[in-house]
């Protein structure tokens, strides 16, 4: 797979944008998660209103092989509804926190979607045939008079317009006291994990759950929470979870049924010279993702992305600064709560590049081989079909060059928290508030 940064052979260009254009963004339309399925054919988004929209990649046009097909709406359904916890007098948001696809095993597609409290397994199936010629009903569905039936016939399957139906197959509820922040399907395709702030539950897709948790006996002593968790892509007994203190623990389920202790503990020693009151907050890990190979994992904290080798616990092997220019603004970002924004990160299919979001609708990509990085923007202005994206730059010093934007001009309401990279191709999906941008590489 090609690299990310500009070169003569590779550039990112706009493909599509989904979502309303007007300035007034309905909060329910804000996209809260984006995920490609394992083949890349389907792209699922969840929003704050509890809806899931699935896009399908159209078959490429045979006449124009240079043009990649587009993603069009395949299915839309309401996954979660707002609920009310009567015991605590609190609302439970219907916002979809995460969507994870199950590997496809038959013609139907399965995905897990979760809000703060409940995980649901959805089956998305196609129906393009219907049976005609029932004996007991006529075509309208009305029951036929039994005395009129003089002969039997075999119903025949007739084609019909394609209908995509989503139906909930399982509901995994009441297992989390705190807010679910992660779900991850295991490589055995039978189990998955769900994590909230203090607890990780291990589920079997069919029935039972085993769980472990890190909740201390005394809530007063609570100083650390789980922020993300993921199953290893190849080893079904291994998973990791990250914490608000910037540490990652790798657990092996073979050692014990209750994984309260970890097998490996990843932590980078703190740089004493850069210590501030915000050090802990910005070290809190917002996302952890294994590489496709399973050899590395990537963590996202507030200012950087780090790549860890699973065999080395004492420091990451690579660190990429996402928006270091924000380090001097931490107090303001703390005041307006932006410092608590949880950015996600993702690998490309070959693990040669990583991507994460930033503010002002910027997103960043890092090529691990060439060490080049690029900043791009998801905006309507650069949304002409197949228009090449222009690299953006934030000016940090005094003098601002022509096309640069100064730190103080950044729009902190426009944040890109959720991005996804097609598992096989250079196609990326970037969620900018209520719009979903799809970019692809320019095929020369």
């Amino acid at each position, binding site marked *: 797979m090609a690299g990310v940064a500009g070169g003569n052979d590779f550039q990112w260009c706009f493909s599509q944008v989904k979502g309303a254009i007007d300035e007034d963004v309905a909060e329910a339309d804000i996209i809260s998660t984006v995920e490609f399925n394992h083949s890349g054919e389907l792209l699922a988004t969840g929003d704050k209103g509890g809806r899931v929209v699935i896009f399908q990649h159209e078959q490429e046009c045979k006449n124009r092989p240079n043009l990649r097909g587009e993603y069009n709406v395949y299915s839309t359904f309401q996954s979660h509804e707002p609920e009310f916890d009567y015991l605590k007098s609190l609302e439970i*948001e219907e916002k979809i926190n995460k969507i994870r696809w199950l590997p496809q095993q038959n013609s139907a597609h399965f995905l897990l979607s979760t809000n703060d409290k409940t995980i649901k397994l959805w089956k998305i199936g196609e129906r393009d045939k219907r049976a005609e010629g029932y004996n007991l009903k006529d075509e309208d569905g009305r029951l036929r008079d039994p005395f009129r039936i003089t002969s039997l016939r075999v119903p025949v399957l007739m084609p019909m317009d394609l209908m995509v139906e989503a139906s909930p197959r399982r509901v995994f509820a009441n297992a989390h006291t705190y807010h679910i922040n992660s779900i991850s399907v295991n490589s055995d395709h039978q189990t998955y994990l769900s994590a909230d702030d203090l607890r990780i539950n291990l589920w079997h897709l069919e029935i039972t759950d085993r769980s472990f948790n890190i909740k201390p006996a005394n809530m*007063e002593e609570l100083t650390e929470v789980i922020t993300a968790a993921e199953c290893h892509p190849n080893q079904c007994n291994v998973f990791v979870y990250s914490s608000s203190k910037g540490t990652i623990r790798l657990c092996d389920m073979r050692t014990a049924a209750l994984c309260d202790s970890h097998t490996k503990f990843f932590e980078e020693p703190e740089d004493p010279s850069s210590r501030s009151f915000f050090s802990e907050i910005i070290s809190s890990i917002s996302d952890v993702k294994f590489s496709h190979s399973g050899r590395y994992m990537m963590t996202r904290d507030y200012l950087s992305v780090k790549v860890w080798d699973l065999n080395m616990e004492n420091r990451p092997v690579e660190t990429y600064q996402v928006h270091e220019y924000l380090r001097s603004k931490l107090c303001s970002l703390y005041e307006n709560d932006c410092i608590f924004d949880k950015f996600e990160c993702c690998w490309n299919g070959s693990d040669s590049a990583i991507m994460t979001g930033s503010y002002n609708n910027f997103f960043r990509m890092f090529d691990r081989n060439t060490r080049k990085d690029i900043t791009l923007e998801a905006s309507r202005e650069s949304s002409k079909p197949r228009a090449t994206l222009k690299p953006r730059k934030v000016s940090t010093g005094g003098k601002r060059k022509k096309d640069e934007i100064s730190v103080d001009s950044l729009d902190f309401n426009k944040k890109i928290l959720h991005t996804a990279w097609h598992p096989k191709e250079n196609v990326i999906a970037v969620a900018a508030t209520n719009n979903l941008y799809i970019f692809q590489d320019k095929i020369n």
Partner: protein
Amino acid sequence: MRYSYQRRTCAIPRAKMFPKGTKRKFSDSREEPVAGGEDVNQSSLAAVRMLSSYSLQRQSLLDMSLIKLQLCHMLVEPNLCRSVLIANTVRQIQEEMTQDGTWQIMTQALSAANAAAQCSADRLVATEVLCRQTEAAQGEQVPKPFPVVGSEGCPAKEVLEEEAAAAEVGMTMSTVSPQAPTSYLPGTFGMDPCWEEEETGEDDDDEEEEEDSEECGSGSEGEERERDSLVEDTRTAEQVFGTFEIKNPAPSPDPALEELFSDVDASYYDLDTVLTGMQSVPKMGPYDLLESLSSHGPSPLSSSTSCRSDLNELDHIMEIIVGS
């Protein structure tokens, strides 16, 4: 049906950068001369010692953090991760302040301020603002000036006030009292939007003036003991930061003060409440929260304390102070 998405209101607009105008100019609102007064000198020296921009920033960070933890506008369960991170930040600041002795000075000054000012915690008003509860009045609650957060001169000022005659105290009070019901916390913590809600009719003073005005808070545990109402909510703060080991001895309670503070609810909120989103009314000021760390008794969470009563009581107190 869509629930209102305004529910998770934060007093501070999200994109708003740190308002530079809310620096507390403690020297501006000081009415008493610094020089002169034998007891005064020592206090002002202490104040000067504490004076530094780092301390200012640290103090304002502390206040900001405490306010963030206090916010209970939410109908949705608060984000536990965020609460834990803020709590850890507060802990960190407090540890550092204890190490360099600032903590002692501040809490002592707060206690002195309590005695001198004789107003109940305007934080009660803050809680009214924050929690929007409308229960019946709970009794007498006296508004209290808050020390200007971050202005290290304030503790000294409060000490000054303490030394001064009652008349002077009254005078001191009057500099802040017109704004007492509304000024302190916004100026301290930048809670402008919240204050605007509650300010109607309270006073005509300029909001900016309020922000700059000195604020003194009651931090004494003596006060807390007086609070006889809302017993269930008392002592919740001790659950908040169990690992806070810094413990400052409470000054002996002043009987007059006790009387005035008879009905103030000592409970701030406990971490469980905050972290799990149960609505309870923080009745203590932020500094009370930090002070009442020692006792770790769990207390049942009660969510039916009154905020509305605070304003009524403040009105009453204002009449006393201003009218008399």
